[in-house]
């Protein structure tokens, strides 16, 4: 019969319409600005720089190695290396970025900078409501705008941050242990040298 298919189709429409009142599966939309769905933990928007402690300048993890600048597919990162050095989290003197800029209007949120960074210094932020009426300055973020504390990272990507923190703590402990061992060895050496000298002195006296 002509029209049977259309009636069948309309039955499906009715099923979906009435079903949307009782089944969550059939009505998945939310009224966005008022209602918000939680973001996925892996969500990524634009990169940010992580710093430890409360001092942004001193705690910045970035050592200006420029790997991300080279690997960035759309070339949106520009870094200027510092002339002096500052101690990093294990106390080793490292360079730091005198200038670190990301042009977020060029950035394509691909996360490759995060993947290639050997220092866990650059991570992806999840803030997405970033529209601005300033085309140039507003979308060209400097180091001050990019830097966020580690607590922020722990908040937005808890699982990932916990892994990174554990790894860094281990590294720090290792370095500290190595340094302690070194210091102990040096002390032992010095002590041994001292005993030796005393011994020689003693033998000379005899």
């Amino acid at each position, binding site marked *: 019969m*002509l*029209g*049977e*298919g*259309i009636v*069948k*189709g309309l*039955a*499906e*429409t009715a*099923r*979906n319409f009435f079903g949307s009142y009782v089944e969550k*599966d*059939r009505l*998945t939309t939310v009224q966005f600005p008022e209602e918000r769905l939680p973001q*996925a*933990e*892996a*969500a*990524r928007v634009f990169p940010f720089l992580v710093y430890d402690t409360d001092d942004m300048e001193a705690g910045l993890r970035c050592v200006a190695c420029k*790997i991300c600048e080279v*690997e*960035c*597919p759309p070339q949106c990162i520009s870094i200027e290396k510092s002339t002096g050095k500052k101690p990093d989290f294990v106390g080793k003197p490292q360079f730091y970025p005198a200038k670190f800029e990301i042009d977020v209007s060029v950035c*394509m*949120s*691909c*996360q*490759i900078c995060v*993947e*290639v960074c050997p220092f866990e210094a650059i991570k*992806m932020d999840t803030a997405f409501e970033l529209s601005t009426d300033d085309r140039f300055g507003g979308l060209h973020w400097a180091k001050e705008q990019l830097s966020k504390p580690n607590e922020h990272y722990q908040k937005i990507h808890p699982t990932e941050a916990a892994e990174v923190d554990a790894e860094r703590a281990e590294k720090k402990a290792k370095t500290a242990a190595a340094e302690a061992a070194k210091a102990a060895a040096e002390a032992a050496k010095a002590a041994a040298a001292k005993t030796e000298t005393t011994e020689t002195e003693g033998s000379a006296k005899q």
Partner: protein
Amino acid sequence: MSAGSVAERIVELTGDADSGQVLEISMGPHHPSTHGVFRMNVELEGEQVVKLKPVFGYLHRNHEKIAENASYLAAIPYTDRLDYMCSMTNNWAYALSVEKLAGIAVPERAEYVRVIVAELTRLQNHASLIGFLMQDMGASGTPLMYAFREREKILDLFESLSGARMMCNYMRFGGVRVDPSAAWLAEVKALVGRFPRFLGEFEALLAENEILMSRTQGVGILSRELAVNAGITGPMLRASGVNYDIRKVDGYGVYERFQFRVPLGEHGDVYDRYMMRVLEMRESVKILEQALKGIPEGPVMDPKARLRGLRPKAGEAYGRIESPKGELGFFLISNGTTEPYRYRVRPPSMINLTVLEDMCLGRSVADIVVTLGSVDIVLGEVDR
């Protein structure tokens, strides 16, 4: 535009003083039915199409040249933006060709994960393509919204896995970037379990609809011979009755381990192409069920694979997969440096588009829209 009668203006437009019958119109680039920025120069005699010339390139972004001046790793996020509906399969095709070029092995778990995400991509691509096709026919809203509702559930899974809904940037040569958690796999399992119900409803909604049948049956017929000669691939080729599916032919990845059938059409018209997508989704669900059951534990990245500063030996490789739209291939030539010497994409939607004129000749303007909709093009891939 000069004043004067319509007949004079037609002569002016076509330059054909003899007939005065042919009207040349330009459909697109900003036309709601062209799925993006695509233009067709159509010559009409009355309502009949006598000539159709596709014009593309409005979305050209220099993809191949950019990739030739970037490292092998840096090209992956650009491949997401080829066919922006199916970034996962684009990633896979590129990763496959680099793996061939550099001789990188892929762990078994990564192969399974790739199959899972690729089949999910196929589900969402085919569902939304059917929605778009119906939209082109005037079913404004309902089928497209139902399709997008399901698509969004799949994209949510992609986001929780890779961090982005559409620009996933998920696969790497040598595996995949993130190991999916057990919770994620359970979510996929739940979604795959619910999907056949949607497919049944979607089919009941559309398949027997008289308007759909009269608009699509016998429209845009592509003969078997022409389909083969023009290099058409994917659901469009199979709708013309040619049994050719790269998942079966090449058996790339771990596709050889799965039981699934390749649906074939008979008439090669728009209705067959529509039906092909519905049936392929059912087969994809079968593959997903098997892949989710068989996924082994283990690493997802080859520990020897080098992402940064990869320098494959001089040589060439062509990796191809069955993307939702057809054969997607990447041809790479390496000269031993960190950048490919030549990088070439074989885009299925562009090659499938080449027979548009043959399918539309003698039909009306309204049929062009339907025929184009059934080709399944994404202009990001056509123009690159």
